[in-house]
């Protein structure tokens, strides 16, 4: 489903070249729940952005459902992000001027929002427990509620892959648990693939794949070896 081969990413910081990823190779099977873990600055978020086609690697290839996202044109990447990827930020990133339902419909505003889409957005908000908040603006909602709207926004496209970057990072424990449960439920219900960057290992279950990154590389060790081996076997 997701195949990354020798993915590298470097940044220029002043005169210094920072290597955020130093050749990462792995596979993630379709319908799995994968956690990318590691210390701050290890490159886990950078990897997630590359997988979601938000950024381009310096070298290496990433294939998602047999499509090479690293060699796509900009228009193709736009379409890929619009139709096949759901992305959840740590800081929610809702549009302040839009109501909850219109935030969920954000991907479809340029092409036109049909009544069916609106009905679907309302239904999704009901599913995440916000049926009574459809017309609320982000500032009228709690952090947990905003993140649930962000999850609904990621799900409206019925994506192949849901990417979540520290989705519980700005929430309290209960709020974080609820969001993770929501993401897992949706992933199971739709048989989509979920890739989550997190610091919080309490969300990881034995059935999950774990990609542990340290200093820009997949860490050698029992957990990551187990996960990687599982991943390779399943593919």
């Amino acid at each position, binding site marked *: 489903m997701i195949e990354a081969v020798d993915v590298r990413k470097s940044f220029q910081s002043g005169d210094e070249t920072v290597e955020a990823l130093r050749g990462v190779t792995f596979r993630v099977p379709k319908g799995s729940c994968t956690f990318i873990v590691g210390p701050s600055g290890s490159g886990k978020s950078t990897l997630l*952005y590359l997988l979601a086609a938000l950024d381009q690697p310096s070298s290496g290839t990433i294939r998602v459902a047999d499509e090479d996202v690293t060699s796509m044109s900009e228009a193709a990447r736009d*379409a890929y*992000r619009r139709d096949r990827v759901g*992305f959840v930020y740590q800081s929610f990133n809702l*549009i302040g*001027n839009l109501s909850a339902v219109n935030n969920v419909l954000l991907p479809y505003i*340029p092409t036109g929002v049909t009544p069916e889409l609106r009905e679907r957005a309302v239904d999704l908000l009901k599913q995440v427990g916000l049926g009574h908040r459809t017309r609320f603006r982000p500032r009228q909602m709690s952090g947990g509620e905003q993140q649930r709207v962000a999850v609904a926004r990621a799900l409206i496209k019925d994506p192949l892959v849901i990417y979540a970057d520290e989705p519980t990072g700005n929430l309290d424990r209960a709020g974080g648990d609820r969001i993770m449960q929501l993401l897992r439920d949706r992933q199971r219900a739709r048989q989509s693939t979920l890739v989550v960057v997190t610091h919080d290992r309490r969300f990881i279950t034995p059935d999950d794949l774990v990609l542990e990154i340290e200093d820009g590389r997949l860490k050698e060790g029992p957990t990551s070896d187990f996960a990687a081996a599982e991943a390779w076997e399943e593919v």
Partner: protein
Amino acid sequence: MWTFAWQNLVTRPTRTTLAVLGLTIPVLAFLGLFSVSRGIRHLMGDTISGLQNLMVLRENAPVPVLSDLPPETGEQLRKVPGVRVAAAEVWKVSPPIDGRGGGLGAAIGMLTKPKEEGFRSLFNIIAVEGIDIAEHAKLTRASFAKAILPKSRGGGRFLDEGDVGKPNVAISTKIAREYPNADGTPKKVGQTLRLGNRDFQIVGLFETGSMVLDATIVMDIGVSRELLNLNPAAVSAYTVEPTSMAEGDLVGERIEQAISGVRAQRIAQFSLTVGSVMGKLDMFLLLAVALAMLVGAVGIANTMLMSTSERYVEFGVMRTNGWTRRNVLMLVTAESALLGALSGLLGGALAAAAVFGVNRFLVGFSLDLSPGLLAASLAGALSIATLAGLYPAWRASRMTPMDAIRHSVAG
């Protein structure tokens, strides 16, 4: 998309209002100045269409009230080939009417009366025109005689040979209203009008539609000389009717060649001159308004730049959710276009209200705000705002999903 763009504007009311006002003011200036310009054009057009014959004045005299011609000019004119009629006229500023106003009174009033009333005085300078009744009766294109109201409206008649030497006048309905009876009703045919120290009987009421002609009291030339204490042979100007109007220009040239010290004012030439002057005035107005529009456009560009700079994260989030650069460009351009449309509509509404209000105080002259002018101002505001928003829109469209993340983290 448009709904989203509109929401982005209304959720920042102060900034949106200031940007709209910045472009509304030039729109208002454009409409105000051009409605005055068009009003003047119409006024001059009405006047010119009312003066179909040639007018012979002293050379360098800009208007008949400042002209005087020697007594022999009439005979000289009649000898010029192509001249059918040469009718003598005396033109002077009227003495006080019914003890007030008149020419000098109106000029003083403009300076001394309260602003609003003084402004009206500008259009209230009344002239006396003394005409050679016998000669004027020969004119086939006489302005006043044709403008007498029908009897059903109490128009009376124009001066005829029976009025020679008599204190009888034809006045406009405007003067009849401006100098009413004691009970406030407009003067009627058969009533008297006091000019200076002398009573005149009104025999006719006319309405030419021209501010200049409707500010004229017409009487016998001999009576006017007595009233104005002029030489018994004094003549200000001659109305000359050519045998053929097609030869008007040619006859005018012949008159100027045959008689030294006179100017034959050809209407066509006068019309062209007015058109040329108004064209230059319009160009000047356009330049002034363009400058103001440029300032308004800079205001819109500044507002949109500020707005987009604050929304980098939003644009990045949109890109993350599949918005193309073109989509972002369209959104910001739609916002600036809406600012332009709001400015155009607000400016148009304010201008229409102002013109309506001002026209209620003006007499014989009105500002002309046509639908075409309103449409042009709306289209102009829309275009300028859209153009001014292109650079901010282009900048916003350059945002990538990663910019959203970086700004989000930085924020």
